């Protein structure tokens, strides 16, 4: 029996890595914990790429199964979630390729356009503009807005800004360089901002503001 004593003190093991070790030792309940922890995030990534609910459900199932089968290939020095996202992205792209035969789909497709890199609409927004819409309306606006972006932008924004991954982890998960992640993130943010301005900017006329009135509490924000 060996005890490893580190001079630096205790080595911190990420809880996910500990769970992976348990799964490798035959404890399937530990995998259940990992699935529960990440299924919602994985579903969202799949939905962002495939833009199809059924596909996203299938991708989510396939990704978790594939990760389970490939668990021996997971290296403890990389993060489990980053590794899982990479599998999910590949599964999502495969699903898209199946659907759109002949059309190449890649997360790294050429996006070197200057479109959206410079803000044009610089009208200020109403204070708390989301309150002018019901929850359902707001959800529709946000979904419609993000759908207008290229898949590579959507996923970078989701991972970095919504899920809070670091630039390095996002780059690793997507197989992109760090500058590529940074450039996509800036454009994603600016394009979303620009598109949301259509809904959220301060209204100039009372009649216009009145048309957009909220159904809740009759709160209308006026310029």
């Amino acid at each position, binding site marked *: 029996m060996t005890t490893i004593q580190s001079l630096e003190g205790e080595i911190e093991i990420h809880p996910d890595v500990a769970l992976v070790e348990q799964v490798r030792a035959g404890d*399937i309940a530990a*995998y*259940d914990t990992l*699935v*529960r922890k990440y*299924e*919602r995030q994985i*579903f*969202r990534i799949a*939905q*962002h790429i495939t833009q199809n609910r059924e596909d*996203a*459900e299938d991708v*989510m*199932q*396939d990704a*978790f*199964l*594939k990760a*389970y*089968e490939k668990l021996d290939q997971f290296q403890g020095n990389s993060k489990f979630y980053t590794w899982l996202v990479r599998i999910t992205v590949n599964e999502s792209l495969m699903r898209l390729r199946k659907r759109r035969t002949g059309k190449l789909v890649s997360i790294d497709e050429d996006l070197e356009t200057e479109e959206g890199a*410079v*803000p044009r609409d*610089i*009208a*200020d*927004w109403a204070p708390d*503009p*989301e309150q002018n819409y019901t*929850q359902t309306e*707001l*959800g529709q606006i*946000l*979904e419609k807005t*993000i759908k207008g972006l290229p898949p590579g932008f959507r996923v970078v*924004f989701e991972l970095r*800004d*919504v899920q809070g991954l670091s630039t390095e982890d996002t780059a690793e998960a997507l197989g992109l360089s760090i500058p590529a992640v*940074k450039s996509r*993130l*800036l454009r994603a*943010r*600016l394009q*979303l*901002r620009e598109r*949301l*301005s259509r809904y*959220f900017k301060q209204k100039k006329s009372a009649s216009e503001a009145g048309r957009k009135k909220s159904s809740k509490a009759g709160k209308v924000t006026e310029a």
Partner: protein
Amino acid sequence: MTCTEFLAKLDDMIDGNVAAKLREELEQHLKACSHCEVVYNTTRKTIQIYRSNELYELPSSLRDRLHTAIMARCKKGCGCS
């Protein structure tokens, strides 16, 4: 500082990745430039709105069904395509 220079540092500023001296310069630009101030504030708001309104939420019944299906397939082992 020009607006283009500000824009190049917009993400770092939003993410809090700027050294104190640069931050001061960026803040000074913001005070003097209403356009950049609007872009900065509304970009932050954009992120905050997306963060607090989760898209593609799975209803818990569907989530449970998918979860059960995943675990059943995992338990069966490598019988997949």
